[in-house]
């Protein structure tokens, strides 16, 4: 592999790796699957060699690819062993956060994506619509419904 591409892979991993991994883990609930998605996203980056005007575009592209890969993974994977509390503790997550995460995982998939991109990554409705490839009204509805369900789980107002 050329040195340039090699350096690019390292850069993408160092800058965006955790972000992509977190979203994938949040959606897939499985460490290995999330790592597979991350690896596949990097490979797609290598193969497509996209050119971006800004870092924001670059990140959005990577999240979009990872999101689509997660959707495919959920649709096609035959074994889908979800992480349990013990697994989360092994990952260094606290009991409280782990317990909370397992509850939040019960949200419907499409709400989770919108919730994650908005409340964790800080994307706007328009940006989320672009990443997920859906309409703005769909994003708003998913955020609204996801927030309602999340509120029940977390018992606080966002």
């Amino acid at each position: 592999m050329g040195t340039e591409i090699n350096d690019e892979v390292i850069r993408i991993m160092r800058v965006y790796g955790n972000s992509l991994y977190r979203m994938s883990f949040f959606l897939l609930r499985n460490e290995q699957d999330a790592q597979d998605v991350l690896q596949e996203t990097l490979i797609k980056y290598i193969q497509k060699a996209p050119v971006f005007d800004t870092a924001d575009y670059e990140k959005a592209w990577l999240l979009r690819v990872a999101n689509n890969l997660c959707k495919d993974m959920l649709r096609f994977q035959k074994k889908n062993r979800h992480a349990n509390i013990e697994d989360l503790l092994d990952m260094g997550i606290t009991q409280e956060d782990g317990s909370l995460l397992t509850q939040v995982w019960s949200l419907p998939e499409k709400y989770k994506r919108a919730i994650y991109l908005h409340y964790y990554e800080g994307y706007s409705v328009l940006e989320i619509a672009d990443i997920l490839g859906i309409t703005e009204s769909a994003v708003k509805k998913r955020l609204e419904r996801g927030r309602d369900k999340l509120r029940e789980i977390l018992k606080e107002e966002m």
Partner: protein
Amino acid sequence: MENRFKNMIDAVQLSEQDQNRIIAACQKERHVDNKWFLYSGRIAAAIVIAVMATTSVTAYAAVSAYQAYMESMSREEVQERYEIVYEGTRGWTLYSRSLTEEEENRKAELQEEYREGTLFPQQSMPYFNGETEAKPKDVEVSFDYVNEICYLPERELTDEELLQIIDLYEKANYSLQEINKEIVTEQATTPAPVSPEDWGMSENQALTEEEWITQLAESAYTQLTGEDAALAEWEINIRGDAESGGERWYLAQFGTEDLSGSICYEYDEEADGWVIKRYNRTVKEATDISVDTYSEEEIQQKISTICEDVTHKLRDVFGITDKIVKGEHDYGYHSKLLQVVLTTETGDRYRLYYFFSNEQIRDYSIYPVETRADFVIIEEGYATEFDIAE
């Protein structure tokens, strides 16, 4: 709240070791068929890495002899090899003993010849289910696909045996690739249910919303009545948020010379798709016969037949696939109305109504019990439990 959510997500971290491992894996990949790599996930990743670890990366593309060799596998063998990959969970990288350095070096050389299509094993390595079958005694190299152990003799492996190991992994990878291609193709032609929110982004842009629901309804109509939907006249009514308190639903009304009725679709959050929530069918100008002429035995026989039928209808027509754990019926001798309530293992209840008339089912509806409070509820003590048909 936002902070709490963020803190929770922040706790998820990819270790530097895992980062480096993934970077290294990407650096070894020169060509990957993305779909098969992805769909088989960790297992395929392990296979790819295990196979490629000791060799320079070689593209899977076009060695005609190699391709022909793979294509010589029957469809049944490909399917079987695909399925056994998923029997195990640990990644197909275990040997009963480590390969020696000399064996590793020979394996790497043999692998190149294998991929160039110039050398294949004389026979395939036998594989077996280690939990239900005994290890083959007539060979010294075999693969337990449930426990994912490749059994090797203690002595130095022959070239043929090393080729069989290579062959096992290569055929597994090929089978994953082929079957996953089929899955992708099948999914592409069988669109998953979509919500109206996604309508604008659906790949089926050629269909209008009305055309799409008409297709669904016509298919259901044929299943429900056994008749050709093309012979019916259809009217589709779409109810939006304003009319139904925030939920969107479709009503497909049909009419033929003999029948009229409607099929109502609502969006099911759990199924993340559209399911039939209500179905009505009325026989036009049906002559009400007096079921009073039926003997008690005949009534019970009809009830029994309907109860048996309804469990299949719930699954086959209405798409409710949850296991039914309880069935109850209540027949009103005055109203001639038979109610059947089915309870699934998830606790959902579905009620169906049958009006006895002219020896035909005149009307039946199915919907979650909780949504129709205006109907008579089967009260405890009045309902008769019946056995669920398999």
